[in-house]
């Protein structure tokens, strides 16, 4: 018996938009040869699609982050492939794992060394709330010492959850007014943490 040979007689033509997410242009008014928009939107678009994360990985959530950075989940798709290990050059502090009280001042110093604008993501139950370590030696959530923008729940969260957190941070960054960091509310927030 001859082997049946099948042909794909209705091939789907490749569409580049299926595979590649193209950032939408900000709202604005365009005419022939010009485009007007808000500076905030343009800056936000640039910032959110080229984040430099600073991983502060202390335990198992850090392992999940390594998977997130790997080829399968590939954080690079979201413009964050450039993981920096120097606080000065990074925009996003990713705290992944249990922070002991003795580690608190170190984490705070890393945050203070980052240049504005900076964002913080607490990955996992421990970084968000102390998690199962309801004890004398563990910081009960990093928001005790530094302000946090996005919390990722899970113990540890799967890479998809970390990616979701990254998308939430991007949302925040894209919508942020360029005046926010100079506002009174922001100064009050920082003063609430004893910064400046």
């Amino acid at each position: 018996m001859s082997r049946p040979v099948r042909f794909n007689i209705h091939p789907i033509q490749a569409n580049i938009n299926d595979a590649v997410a193209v950032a939408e242009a900000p709202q604005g008014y365009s005419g022939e040869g010009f485009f007007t928009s808000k500076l905030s939107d343009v800056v936000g678009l640039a910032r959110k699609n080229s984040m430099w994360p600073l991983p502060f990985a202390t335990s198992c959530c850090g392992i999940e982050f390594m998977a997130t950075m790997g080829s399968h989940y590939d954080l690079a798709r979201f413009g964050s492939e450039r993981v920096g290990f120097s606080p000065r050059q990074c925009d996003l502090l990713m705290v992944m794992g249990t922070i002991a009280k003795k580690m608190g001042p170190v984490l705070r110093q890393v945050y203070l060394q980052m240049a504005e604008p900076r964002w913080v993501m607490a990955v996992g139950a421990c970084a968000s709330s102390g998690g199962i370590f309801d004890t004398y030696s563990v910081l009960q959530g990093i928001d005790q010492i530094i302000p946090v923008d996005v919390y990722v729940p899970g113990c540890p969260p799967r890479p998809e959850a970390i990616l979701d957190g990254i998308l939430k941070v991007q949302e925040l960054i894209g919508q942020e007014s360029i005046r926010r960091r100079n506002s009174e509310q922001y100064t009050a927030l920082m003063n609430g943490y004893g910064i400046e």
Partner: protein
Amino acid sequence: MMGLTNEIIKQRLTEKFGEAIFHFDESYGMLSFEAAKENNLKVLQFLFDDEVLNFRFLTDLCAVNYPDLAGRELAVVYHLHNLQENIRIRFKVFTSIAEPDVFTASKLYAAANWMERETFDFYGVNFTGHPNLKRILNVDEMDYFPMRKEYPLEDQTRVDKDDEMFGRG
């Protein structure tokens, strides 16, 4: 030199110290005994120097809190090892929690330096004569000794957990 046994150790200690060493016990084959806390260095020095006993290695040093034993709430336990005969003993001194002063063994065993700092850190045993008695594992600002059995399982006055998140709001 072979053949050091618990019996020989016990006999040797009794010859030297008489009634000053008491509460001999052999749990799971390991000899343990007690002395008054004023005598801890004398006993340790003898265990170290004696040509038969030769306990030159301090395996571990820790404290135990017995809140029900009035006047002897804290026990400081020395785990000693004779490396030549491969035999181990436990030596305990008890102190009251109100005045937890015990002479430091760090002059005799260098290993005792950090172990005593840890014991101070967690139990508040004040090792008199220690060269650098400060916290080693916990934050310096801590103003209590966390391993003492004087805390309720859940402290209701805590502010660092948001009760509503845990269904006890």
